[in-house]
């Protein structure tokens, strides 16, 4: 399906949010169900998947948090975080 650049970025951001949501849900679940092997396994997989999707997003659209390493293109581009467009405006 051909999405415009904006829709594509929105779609990837939505996937990042979805993966993070699953991690939060499973973390809360494993807090109350500590000795369930499948839940713990699914929780670990969810964390890996979320990190992977986040890395994909960041490679294309720049760092999402202070802790993420900016890609080479971001550095060449002279990534200046305090200029428009702000993350919520893109």
């Amino acid at each position: 399906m051909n999405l415009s650049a904006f829709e594509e970025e929105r779609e990837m951001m939505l996937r990042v949010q979805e993966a993070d949501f699953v991690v939060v849900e499973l973390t809360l679940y494993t807090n109350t169900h500590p000795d369930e092997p499948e839940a713990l396994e699914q929780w670990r997989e969810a964390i890996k998947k979320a990190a992977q999707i986040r890395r994909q997003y960041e490679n294309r659209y720049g760092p999402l948090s202070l802790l993420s390493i900016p890609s080479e293109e971001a550095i060449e581009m002279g990534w200046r975080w305090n200029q428009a467009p702000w993350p919520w405006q893109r």
Partner: protein
Amino acid sequence: MYRGSYRPYVSPLDPCPPMRVKKFVLPPPIFMDFQPPDLEQVSPREALMIGTLWPLLADEFYREEGIS
């Protein structure tokens, strides 16, 4: 998932326009003491939309309903 409403007392001295009927919802987790293991799960996208990974706990309350 239980819906309910009640009529709060309205006094002439109330500072703001009164809310005649206040609606509320009692989501399923209230009636469960402990979540059973291996409940059926939904896809991540769906989970983000309904607010939980397990449809059994979802209460399908939506903003349009304007539950206060």
